């Protein structure tokens, strides 16, 4: 039985004060430099262990994968060699187009398009909470990463943005997170309607795209790309496809349900766009 004697009451009161102080610090977003520094130390101490743990698990997984699928790997190698030859031919053709494109841009005085400066990273940890859609990657400040940099998959699907950077790791807020908002545009030659893509907060729920004009030319099946209207994301990154459309704000606007492209791949490795 819990006895509320004098000493216990003092301890309970002190603990309550401690909890309330912590809540006050959290709710008011109070930044205490020493505390942040200490938090960074904990984070930077734990992520190398996570990285090591992840490497060991990956090696074990790879060993068993190779052991049980040698025939499949042989077939895949043959297939990839063929694909490689086809792609080499395509690169040859495309380099001709690229030269032509550059020459025509120069003739028209168009601004040269900058290639993304990207860096690959491995996912080493998931979110500690079911309500926060975050992943931790094994690249950090040492690799030139900064907050708010966009993160994509190798196929070019938008994954999220860098939320917090440690010395050798960083946290990525996923596109499915409740706090994630990005401008989207319809990728159709005869329609360039725009809207805001918002995270659902859950992995099993689709994202929504709202603030679409009530008379916008938008259809189910339309592909949505990043609009690039804000300076946070480059334009043209694939977000997803519209699977449902309905009126919003009593008919003043439309709202769409998006099936995200990142659901079609497993996010084990990502690319961080350092400049665009």
């Amino acid at each position, binding site marked *: 039985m*819990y006895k509320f004697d004098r000493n216990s009451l003092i301890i309970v009161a002190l603990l309550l004060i401690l909890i309330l102080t912590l809540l006050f610090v*959290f709710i008011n977003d109070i930044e205490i430099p020493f505390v942040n520094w200490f*938090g960074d130390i904990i984070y930077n101490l*734990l992520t190398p262990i996570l990285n090591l743990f992840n490497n060991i*698990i990956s090696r074990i997984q790879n060993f068993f994968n190779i052991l049980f699928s040698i025939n499949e790997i042989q077939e895949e190698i043959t297939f990839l060699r063929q694909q490689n030859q086809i792609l080499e031919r395509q690169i040859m053709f495309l380099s001709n187009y690229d030269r032509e494109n550059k020459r025509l841009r120069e003739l028209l005085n168009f601004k040269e398009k900058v290639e993304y400066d990207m860096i690959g990273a491995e996912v080493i940890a998931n*979110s*500690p909470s*079911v309500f926060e859609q975050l992943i931790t990657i094994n690249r950090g400040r040492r690799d030139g990463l900064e907050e708010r940099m966009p993160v994509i998959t190798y196929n070019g699907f938008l994954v999220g943005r860098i939320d917090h950077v440690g010395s050798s790791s960083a946290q990525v807020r996923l596109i499915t997170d*409740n706090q994630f908002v990005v401008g989207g545009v319809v990728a159709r030659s005869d329609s360039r309607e725009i809207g805001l893509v918002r995270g659902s*907060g859950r992995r099993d729920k689709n994202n929504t795209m709202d603030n679409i004009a009530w008379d916008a030319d938008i259809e189910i099946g339309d592909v949505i790309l990043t609009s690039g209207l804000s300076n946070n994301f480059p334009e043209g990154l694939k977000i997803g496809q519209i699977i449902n459309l309905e009126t919003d704000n009593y008919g003043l606007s439309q709202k769409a349900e998006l099936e995200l492209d990142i659901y079609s791949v497993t996010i084990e490795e990502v690319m961080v766009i350092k400049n665009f």
Partner: protein
Amino acid sequence: MKIYFKNLIIMVLLLICQLSLGVIFPNLYLVPDFILIFIVLKAIFNGSKQAMIYGFSGGILQDAFLGTFIGIFTPVKTAVAFLSGLLSGRFFPENLLIPPLGVFLATIVHQFLYILLKENYLFNINILVVFRELILPMAALNALLTFAFYLLYIFLGRRNINWID
């Protein structure tokens, strides 16, 4: 001091397991909160005072992976440790149902406190749907794991539950 350090290392290992589970099994929808299970068991067997220290430390560790030092997990886990400690000394260790039940209730309280303190969640979600589809399955998963661990230790003959110290 030595025992606190030992338990801190256990919590770090539990956190690493918790964070890595989703990477090893990408299709896993719910990941159990191992630190919460550990803290609640600590509270049930050792009382509130000790458990609150572990709740505070566990919360700080989890908050570090949400980008803040003292964030939402630190006060929530400390509060849950205190509430769970109220069960301490009220049942026999052979009672297999109390620890899972404690973890089940603690998970529900923990997740509700979390939602209440998150402004963007509090006003944007249907609490009933989240309770039915996220909180309840999570609480059941944590309780099931607690039951399995507790059963294992009881059957291994470690009735004095020294492991929890």
